């Protein structure tokens, strides 16, 4: 014990040896604080936690520096589920005396068990929410929330008390008793839980007495006559025929009862079990159908994929075919070109024959070299061939053989459109006109007028055009 004034260690003397202050009253205060602490400790040992809180609080009222009392109070609060109050006491205890204080050990243990800490805090939160629901009039919501909370077996005594109260209200006395027992197992001296339990017991006693009042009075025999026996039961008088014994046997009514019972049983089976069985079979069938549908879907997807592959292959084949045709055309072109060149070089074919041969060759399918040969031959033969064809065509025109004229003059035009500086075009247009091909005639006449306005036959062409 230290002096409250100077902090010096006190002896048994009624004054402080250091400052001389009278410490009699102070010693008594400390003594009373310790008495209450001892009482609180005893109550805590027998799990009367509410009583322990009261005693320890009194102890601290006398001496706030009674660290044992404060630490124990925190522990008791923690055991009752009052986490915040427990931590408050330990924090104050550590502030009063930081060195070698059990409170710091307790707080460290609590901090280390994070899961437990969160769980307790969550419990408190849910409990507070239940109270809010009750205030708002939502008793059912509060009950459901509290039921979930209780199922987790928290330490919070208040939760069990509240649950007990709600269950009593719902007349679920057995469950209420169980809840209150749990509260009392945490805090044996919890007055509220004891009060509710007492009330429950009284309610049960009252119910028991009510049941006893309803029990029927024993019957009393009054008299027996020749053919009947008469007796009373309560307020009723019962007259029963005498001498006729009741035989337990298998009679027609019994048989009928058995049949009816069998029918009822069959009906129960039919209406209760058969639908369930049918449902199970249907479910199995549906599952199989679903499985088959899945298989079908995957097969369809496979078929579609194969179709796409087939189309792709067909496209490739077509492309290959086209390439093959092009190659074949090119080869044929080369052969024709070589043949024509050889014939022309040897002098076996004239310019007209070679020129006609060249028109059947596809120049674009040839290679660069081939195209050079083609162009060379064309240069050497087309002009001469055009002149020959023009001459033949004009002769045919003059002989009124317009079909032949058209054929020859068309070929001449294809080889050299500028031959004759417009004369070729004129005779071709006139041949078209005479042959009845009015559209082509108009086109050629117009071309003559546009390209060769100084040609001698332009006037004739204009006249012919105006008539068409």
């Amino acid at each position: 014990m230290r002096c409250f004034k100077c902090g010096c260690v006190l002896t048994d003397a009624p004054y402080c040896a250091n400052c001389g202050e009278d410490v009699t009253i102070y010693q008594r205060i400390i003594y009373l604080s310790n008495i209450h602490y001892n009482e609180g400790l005893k109550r805590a040992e027998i799990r009367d936690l509410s009583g322990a809180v009261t005693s320890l609080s009194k102890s601290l009222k006398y001496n706030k520096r009674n660290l044992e009392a404060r630490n124990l109070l925190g522990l008791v609060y923690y055991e009752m589920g009052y986490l915040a109050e427990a931590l408050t006491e330990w924090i104050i205890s550590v502030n009063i005396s930081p060195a070698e204080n059990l409170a710091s050990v307790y707080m460290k243990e609590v901090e280390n068990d994070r899961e437990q800490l969160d769980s307790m805090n969550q419990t408190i939160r849910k409990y507070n929410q239940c109270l809010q629901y009750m205030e708002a009039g939502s008793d059912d919501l509060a009950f459901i929330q509290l039921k979930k909370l209780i199922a987790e077996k928290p330490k919070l005594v208040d939760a069990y008390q509240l649950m007990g109260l709600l269950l009593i209200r719902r007349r679920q006395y057995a469950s209420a008793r169980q809840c209150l027992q749990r509260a009392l197992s945490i805090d044996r001296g919890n007055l509220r839980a004891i009060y509710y339990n007492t009330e429950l017991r009284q309610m049960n006693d009252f119910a028991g007495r009510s049941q006893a009042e309803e029990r029927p009075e024993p019957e009393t025999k009054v008299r027996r006559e020749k053919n009947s026996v008469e007796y009373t039961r309560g307020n009723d008088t019962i007259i029963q025929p005498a001498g006729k014994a009741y035989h337990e046997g298998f009679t027609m009514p019994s048989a009928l009862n058995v049949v009816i019972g069998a029918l009822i049983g069959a009906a129960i089976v039919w209406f209760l079990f058969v639908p369930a069985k049918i449902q199970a079979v249907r479910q199995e069938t549906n599952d199989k159908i679903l499985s088959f549908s899945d298989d079908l879907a995957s097969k369809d997807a496979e078929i579609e994929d194969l179709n796409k592959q087939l189309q792709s292959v067909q496209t490739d084949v077509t492309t290959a075919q086209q390439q093959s045709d092009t190659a074949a055309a090119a080869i044929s072109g080369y052969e024709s070109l070589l043949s024509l060149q050889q014939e022309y070089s040897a002098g076996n074919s004239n310019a007209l024959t070679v020129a006609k041969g060249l028109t059947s060759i596809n120049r674009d399918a040839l290679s660069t070299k081939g195209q050079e040969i083609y162009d060379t031959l064309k240069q050497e033969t087309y002009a001469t061939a055009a002149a020959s064809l023009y001459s033949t065509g004009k002769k045919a025109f003059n002989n009124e053989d317009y079909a032949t004229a058209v054929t020859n003059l068309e070929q001449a035009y294809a080889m050299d459109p500028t031959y004759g500086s417009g004369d070729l075009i004129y005779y071709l247009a006139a041949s078209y006109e005479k042959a009845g091909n009015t559209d082509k005639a108009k086109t050629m006449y117009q071309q003559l007028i546009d390209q060769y306005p100084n040609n001698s036959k332009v006037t004739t062409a204009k006249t012919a055009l105006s008539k068409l």
Partner: protein
Amino acid sequence: MIDFEEEIKKFHPVHEIGEVEELVYDKELTDMTDILKEMLKDRKKKH
């Protein structure tokens, strides 16, 4: 007989862990020793 409405009023919310700071600050820590000190101080002032 338990009066449900009256009993419900006796239930109060429990403090959460976040309220510890507030509880510590609001804690009334005056004890008999503090009162004794005050009384001795007053007595000395009078004399």
